[in-house]
């Protein structure tokens, strides 16, 4: 149970993320380490709470992409200090996700934000980066045994390739859940392409990912 001192420090971490005060986050993260406080708790009850609050501000139309990026940087500044001291398993979701921007496309801000939101909720995320050929998605899903594959595209010319990737992955492993996102995409197109899910921004993507993972686990238990 976190005591008064812990709560005080975690609240500062949360505030540092929301106010994108990197100096505050770094200072407090170092204090956590110096005072031997539980780093895992600091991450999840401090930094991650901050990022969740930022997500909500984004959904409410108070924060936009510049603010998300700044908050993410503040969060990573703290995470980089604390991660060496994290013991034991991440108390969030247990799932493996694979993410990448499809071949021919290099717009990766959205993909990076989705990755961040998935990581803070506990997914182990494998990031293939951008301009990823279909075979790489298939091979990496197989190698990591990812429960969830997330495809991102910003252009009409590249998003059409998603249909093929989805077919290839499901051909090899029908249990994998696949979600797609990016500016030219819509729920209708996602359905047309055979995707299991769609999200219009990083915050919604995290919720969708959690939902798909639950469905995937249900299927596996019952098969």
């Amino acid at each position, binding site marked *: 149970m976190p005591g008064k001192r812990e709560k005080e420090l975690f609240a500062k971490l949360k505030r540092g993320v929301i106010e994108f005060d990197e100096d505050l986050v770094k200072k407090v993260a170092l204090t956590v380490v110096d005072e031997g406080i539980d780093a895992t708790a600091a991450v999840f009850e401090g930094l991650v709470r901050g990022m969740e609050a930022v997500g909500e501000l984004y959904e409410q*139309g108070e924060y*936009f992409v*510049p603010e998300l*990026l700044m908050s993410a940087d503040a969060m990573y500044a703290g995470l980089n200090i604390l991660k060496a001291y994290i013991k034991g398993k991440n108390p969030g979701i247990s799932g493996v996700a694979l993410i990448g921007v499809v071949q*021919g496309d290099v717009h990766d801000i959205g993909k990076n934000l989705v990755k961040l939101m998935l990581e803070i909720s506990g997914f182990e995320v494998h990031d293939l980066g951008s301009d990823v050929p279909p075979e790489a998605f298939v091979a990496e899903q197989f190698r990591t045994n990812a429960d969830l594959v997330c495809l991102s595209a910003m252009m009409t*010319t*590249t998003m059409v390739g998603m249909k093929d990737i989805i077919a290839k992955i499901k051909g090899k492993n029908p249990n994998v859940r696949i979600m797609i996102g990016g500016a030219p995409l819509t729920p209708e*197109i996602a359905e047309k392409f055979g995707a299991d899910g769609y999200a219009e921004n990083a915050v919604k993507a995290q919720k969708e990912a959690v939902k798909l993972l639950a469905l995937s686990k249900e299927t596996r238990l019952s098969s």
Partner: protein
Amino acid sequence: MKAIKENSRSGDKMTPRERMAAFVSGGELDRLPFILHVGEHASRLIGVSVARYSHDPTLMAEAQCAVSRLYGPDSVGVGPGLFGIAEAMGAEIIFPEDGMPYLGRPVIHTESDLARLNPVNPYRDGRLSLYLEALKMIDARVGRQVPVSSSVGGPLTTAAALRGTENLLKDFYRRPEWVHRLLALVTESALNYIDAVAGLGLKTGISEPMASSSLISPAHFREFVAPYLKLYTKRIKKHSGSGPHLHICGDTRRIWQEMVETGAAAISLDEMVDLAAAKDAVGGRVVIAGNVRPVETMLLGNPSRVEAEVRECLRKAYDSPRGFIVCPGCALPLHTPAENVKAFAAAVRRYARCPIDPLLLEDSGC
């Protein structure tokens, strides 16, 4: 190569030039106008790769004249689009042989990078002179019947092409004065290009996709975009007597007033915007244009869906006080089927005939 058949102009009693002149002056129209935002898609009409199209003014002219012949929009033209000004200033643009060009690595990082940046010479830098050449040819061939114009990326989009989008958005907070200096430089470049286009007797429109609330706050729009857009529109107005067509894709609901205040004469809106709401908010101050869905309908739909959506757009905004122009919500995707674009044109010719019959536009519920 299949011969390009001339589009049936059934019912049209005016040339596009006559129609647009009447539209602007509030005169009588045979029908409402439509435009198509055709960039690289034009290369499909003459069977050349995008890379070849983008580097050859003769092919650009050929392709855009084919657009005019095949689809008959009320404006044609060509321009450096989203990246051309930035490219001329040193941005890295990658041209796949036959796909959309895209941005490479950011090229402006430090103070000294910024200090070395110069406003462009539109006759010499990058591929800008190719566009000026192409515009001359297009105007010579079709300019008597169709208004010809160019278009240029807005200040934020251009700055982002040089600095990298993610970097620039964070620079808003980390070094705002530096951002302003970069924006001032790209603005000067754009003004030089606008001047060169005006030298041909032509007008320039503006595309500023990065400025919508899908990406940045209205406050940041007011701080970092509006002041520079105003400089663009002021220059365009000085040459042509009227404000430009300003296209900002994405969700612009919260910045319509600001868009009007930049001095634009027409604002072009994306698919997620409710045209009726835009009409109510600013239709008394500017021309409204929009907003058939470019991906779902133009690219992935069929002629009957296209027709239904053109009707829906008309239903919502045909009576906008300062006028309404039908167009796709954003640039036509590269692989848009020609039959869908023809259906678009046919639908406008059928349903936007003046005086508009609202009964004809009613939702048939199918």
